[in-house]
């Protein structure tokens, strides 16, 4: 059975304290892995898509990487505005459906 597991569930950081979020997956035939950011009471906002192991994508203080079994979202020198829940999701070759992890809630204190 396909699974997407994110860790940790919650992460509290000081401003400037870099850290990484993990998304491990077991899926038969990965078509793509997606990262989203979700602010409280809002819909998820697309960040990155990764398609193959070794691929990396960057946007401001965020960098996503992909291996054959997991993806990392690195937050470099975070600011309070980076506080959000970060979701990863996998898309299989077999269908159109995304499977989401439960998310990691990041809180950055000034």
């Amino acid at each position: 059975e396909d699974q997407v597991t994110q860790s940790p569930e919650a992460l509290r950081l000081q401003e400037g304290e870099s850290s990484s979020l993990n998304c491990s997956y077991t899926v038969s035939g990965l078509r793509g892995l997606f990262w989203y950011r979700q602010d409280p009471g809002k819909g998820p906002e697309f960040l990155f898509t990764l398609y193959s192991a070794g691929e990396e994508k960057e946007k401001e203080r965020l960098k996503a990487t992909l291996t054959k079994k997991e993806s990392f979202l690195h937050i470099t020198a975070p600011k309070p505005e980076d506080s959000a829940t970060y979701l990863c999701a996998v898309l299989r070759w077999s269908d159109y459906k995304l499977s989401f992890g439960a998310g990691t809630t990041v809180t950055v204190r000034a």
Partner: protein
Amino acid sequence: DVKVTQSSRYLVKRTGEKVFLECVQDMDHENMFWYRQDPGLGLRLIYFSYDVKMKEKGDIPEGYSVSREKKERFSLILESASTNQTSMYLCASSLADESEQYFGPGTRLTVT
């Protein structure tokens, strides 16, 4: 920019009522999706549509139906609302199968 809009941000309905949630996207996307999001359970797919008048069941379709009469509009219908359908409902659209999905702001539905 892609814009996905949902008809209501907050909705309160009574048990047994028929509930309609509407979603509209303005970017001519082929695929549209309905999810519900609950604490600890994450996002779960209810139904999706890859073309007008086409629909496919997601992981939790029981108690729901959908309608897509026009490309830009995808409706979720709760035939007889129950308290266990209290949740945040999110609509999304994507250009193609492998493309990223763009989400609407969500509708928080409370069934009393």
